[in-house]
């Protein structure tokens, strides 16, 4: 019955209590939301590449190799010669190998030369394959397949011509050899979305008239002649490797790293992603810290509300005292009340989070390629609720102790 009265007391102050609950709910929703985005981002990040056992490139840093080969950030300092590539490809451990040639761009998007095998072996988000949204894969030498973001940003459709620029952010274009968009890929949420994919031979083809990074003046080999040339590349930027058995991964990695003809580097994508995340993770931690502070602010707000309501509730406490309630009962009631408020807030916050997730999930996936899985609340959410309730109870000790003192001093007569 005392519980019922405490509850009634809360109901009587429905507006202020409601606002407090709302504040806590929003802060909890924000906190859990940030947590969701954080884990979602981390998972999305780790999902960028899956199914690939090793990434091979010229010797540099593992993070750097990962950045330019997978995320198309930065540049390769060196290339891998075609001979080395062939050597690695012919090793018995290798199940499949996909060469990647980077260095050119179209508008702000990177151009990647590769083979058909890329579409077969490149996997993201738990082994999903790339899918064509419109058109088909490269059939002709001068065909290009573009990622979803490229198509959307530049408004391309299949059949549109595109001119590839030499290098990145460069004004010298491979004007003589325009490409045709043959296909557009489905949105993946990976850097593939921002990539123009052409064949490895095409990369060679557009560089026929170029020598050491500059165009040979006055020279322009006609397309017919190019088509008859041997367009086997002399070097590639990197290669994605799949091994026959996971047990061989380390042996192959070691063999490549110790390759004597040329300094090479083989990395495990998962490990490199972890290293990279460790760098990016600082921002994530800061975000989390901010949302924790928001929750703390909401709880302090609750404390302020209770403190300011104490005066108008002295009468209520005096009645309870007159009925024989000890000051400890009053202290307990206030703590209980805040714990209840915090609990309602936390649960409502959880509700807001799920409503928000249902609404935002497709939008976020479309816009940022960030997939936020909707999972039933688990242990972590439970812990958040428990923590918020405990914190609410602890914070309420301040007004509760004040009420305790007031009710001792006032006794049953309110001097107002």
């Amino acid at each position, binding site marked *: *019955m005392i519980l019922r*009265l405490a509850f009634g007391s809360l109901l*009587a102050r429905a507006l202020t209590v409601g606002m407090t609950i709302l504040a806590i709910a929003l802060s909890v929703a924000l906190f859990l939301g940030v947590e969701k985005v954080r884990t979602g981002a981390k998972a999305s990040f780790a999902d960028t590449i899956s199914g690939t056992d090793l990434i091979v490139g010229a010797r540099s840093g593992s993070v750097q190799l990962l950045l330019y080969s997978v995320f198309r950030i930065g540049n390769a300092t060196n290339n891998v010669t075609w001979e080395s590539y062939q050597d690695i490809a012919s090793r018995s451990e290798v199940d499949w190998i996909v060469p990647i040639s980077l260095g050119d761009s179209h508008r702000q998007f990177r151009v990647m030369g590769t083979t058909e095998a890329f579409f077969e072996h490149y996997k993201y988000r738990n082994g999903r394959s790339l899918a064509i949204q419109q058109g088909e894969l490269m059939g002709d030498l001068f065909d290009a397949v573009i990622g979803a973001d490229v198509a959307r940003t530049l408004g391309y459709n299949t059949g549109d011509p595109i001119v590839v620029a030499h290098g990145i952010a460069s004004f010298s274009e491979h004007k003589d050899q325009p490409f045709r968009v043959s296909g557009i890929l489905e949105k993946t949420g990976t850097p593939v979305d921002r990539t123009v994919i052409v064949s490895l031979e095409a990369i060679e083809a557009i560089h026929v008239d170029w020598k050491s990074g500059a165009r040979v003046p006055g020279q322009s080999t006609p397309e017919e002649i190019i088509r008859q040339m041997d367009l086997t590349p002399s070097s590639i930027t990197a290669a994605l490797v799949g091994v026959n058995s996971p047990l061989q991964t380390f042996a192959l990695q070691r063999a490549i790293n110790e390759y004597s003809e040329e300094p090479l580097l083989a990395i495990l994508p998962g490990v490199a992603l972890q290293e990279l995340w460790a760098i990016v993770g600082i921002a994530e931690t800061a975000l989390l810290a901010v949302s924790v502070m928001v929750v703390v602010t909401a709880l302090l707000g609750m404390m302020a509300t209770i403190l300011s309501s104490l005066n108008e509730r002295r009468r209520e406490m005096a*009645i309870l005292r*007159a*009925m*024989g*309630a*000890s000051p400890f*009962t009053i202290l307990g009631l206030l703590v209980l009340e805040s714990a209840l408020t915090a609990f309602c807030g936390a649960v409502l916050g959880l509700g807001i989070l799920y409503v928000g997730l249902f609404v935002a999930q497709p939008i976020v996936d479309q816009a940022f390629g960030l997939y936020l899985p909707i999972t039933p609340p688990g242990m972590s959410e439970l812990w958040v609720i428990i923590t918020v309730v405990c914190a609410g109870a602890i914070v309420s000790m301040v007004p509760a102790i004040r009420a305790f003192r007031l009710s001792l001093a006032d006794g049953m007569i309110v001097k107002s």
Partner: protein
Amino acid sequence: MCGTVLADSGEVNVGGTNLNSLSGWARDRFRAEQIGIIFQQFNLLPFGTVLDNILLPLKFAPKRRARCPDAAAKAIEMCKLLGLPEGVEKSKAANLSVGQQQRVAVVRALIGEPPILIADEPTSSLDETSQENFLDLLFAQVAAQKSTLLMVSHDPRLASRFDRVVYMKDVVSVEGRQA
């Protein structure tokens, strides 16, 4: 006397118990068990139902609770005796008129038959006719339960109803202080 404020010197004996000798917790218990209290006004928790308000002191007083096994029925019966409308126990205290609230407070003070009733100007918020009615009912109930009624009032006309009257000015002169 209620044990919320202690005497600075001397001792306060209520029903043979020296309040100064009791711990705070014990005084709270003592008050709950022995004394029914009626305030000047605002006696009830406005958000609680009348019944909850009436039964509230029993929560803190196991002996009083033991004295009336079916407290809810007793409360309803007493409400009727005091002329409160039927079904009043379910309505919220805030919805009652002041006179009705005072009568509910009487029911609450009397429930479980505490030996002492303290009323702090219970009639000052009522008009004269209501005062008369209220006091008649109060005295009838107190007599029925054989409780002691201690009432504070500014109204000397009420004095005739009591066995013993103490004027505050006399008390002050005993204490040798200015009122």
